[in-house]
């Protein structure tokens, strides 16, 4: 347990959290290894789990009938995957299922945190809720900014 706590605290997503807050999250987390080719999240699936990627590459892929599948983004160590679990209990969750397949391109090591468990902890502790929401917004915004640039087709 102490090992899990220490390595959780080292993940870039959680590194700004206080040690008490990290300790609170340990109960929601497990350490999982995915084999190459394994799907972590499938298009249309609920994002009920939060992935903190520790190692390996995950390809975000779209399946297109009649065309070859396409990868539009790769995620790696330090990135996170699946964030809409955070909205579950305030009734606004609609259309927030995964838009793409997340496939382990090689062996992937990740912390998997249960969304419901996280939500409970966040409701019980406003400060934790605030800290985690802030991290989530920052990460989502960074991803959004990058995807906007990516959509520009700058290389001509």
């Amino acid at each position, binding site marked *: 347990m102490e090992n899990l706590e220490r390595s959780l605290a080292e993940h870039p997503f959680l590194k700004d959290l206080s040690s008490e807050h990290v300790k609170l999250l340990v109960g929601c987390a497990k350490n999982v290894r995915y084999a190459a080719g394994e799907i972590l999240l499938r298009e249309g699936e609920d994002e009920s789990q939060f992935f903190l990627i520790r190692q390996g590459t995950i390809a975000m892929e779209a399946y297109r009938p009649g065309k070859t599948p396409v*990868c539009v983004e*790769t995620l790696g*160590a330090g990135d996170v995957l699946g964030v809409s679990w955070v909205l579950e209990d305030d009734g606004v969750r609609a259309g927030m299922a995964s838009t793409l397949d997340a*496939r382990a*391109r090689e062996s992937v090591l990740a912390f998997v945190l249960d969304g419901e468990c996280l939500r409970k902890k966040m409701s019980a502790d406003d400060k934790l809720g605030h800290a985690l929401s802030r991290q989530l917004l920052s990460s989502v915004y960074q991803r959004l900014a990058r995807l906007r*640039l990516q959509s520009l*087709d*700058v*290389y001509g």
Partner: protein
Amino acid sequence: MVELWTPPPGERAHTMVPRMLRVDRVIRELPDIVTLVLDSAPMGGFRFGPGQFNMLYLFGTGEVPISISGNPVEPGDLVHTIRAVGQVTRPMCQVKRGDMLGVRGPFGTEWPMDDARGKDLLIVAGGLGLAPLRPAIYHALHHRSAYGRVIVLYGTRAPDSILFEDELHTWRGRFDCEVDITVDRAPTDFRGHVGVVPALLDRFSFDPDRTVAMVCGPEIMMRFTARALTKKGLPREAIWLSVERSMKCGMGVCGHCQFGPTFACKDGPVMRYDHIFRLLDIREI
């Protein structure tokens, strides 16, 4: 008679007259990108610094500024890599072995290979921007012990538009050179990264105190790459970009390449980010 304004001491060149050199090899890199190898032996080889460019002339058509993409250590071959995109470059990409092209140059500033000695080199290229950086990579690998880490990060549209792919593989295979590629989108069997160059930067850790970054690509890509590098702690003084503007003379007398108070042809193309970051934020400058 009124005296002419006296030029500064040193050699002055009068070079509106091209030297005609023969095309020795034509390498089709990508559907719209061609590398032309000119035989510079008749003029005793062609010396240039990494980052410099030539004005290339196609008979009866016109002249365009093209960065030299060859090996500065092998001055016999004069190498340019050209994208067929404009009125001059489109027919220029159609030339055959044995045809002649006019050359004026070399012009412009160089990548800071001397200033970067003893430092880690972070070479970030986007699209055709790898061509002006290739001489810097050749230089660094030739003088390998002069530098710390050599990191080459390359972004392009898709796996089928990777320039100099074989060489990227060769460099990646060396123990002393880190190479990584990112594309905007890819088939699922692609093994590199998919995403923008700043995302790729995040996958690397480098020491901001001992890294010199050389960035070349579309201006927008350089803008967001340079910003991402400063966010990672690199001082602006350690970031170098290669600026592209219209040029008719290459030597500061035609006025076309003005970029704020600078002339891209003689103050550039390679410029230090702290000198130009404000200019890069001015629209239509």
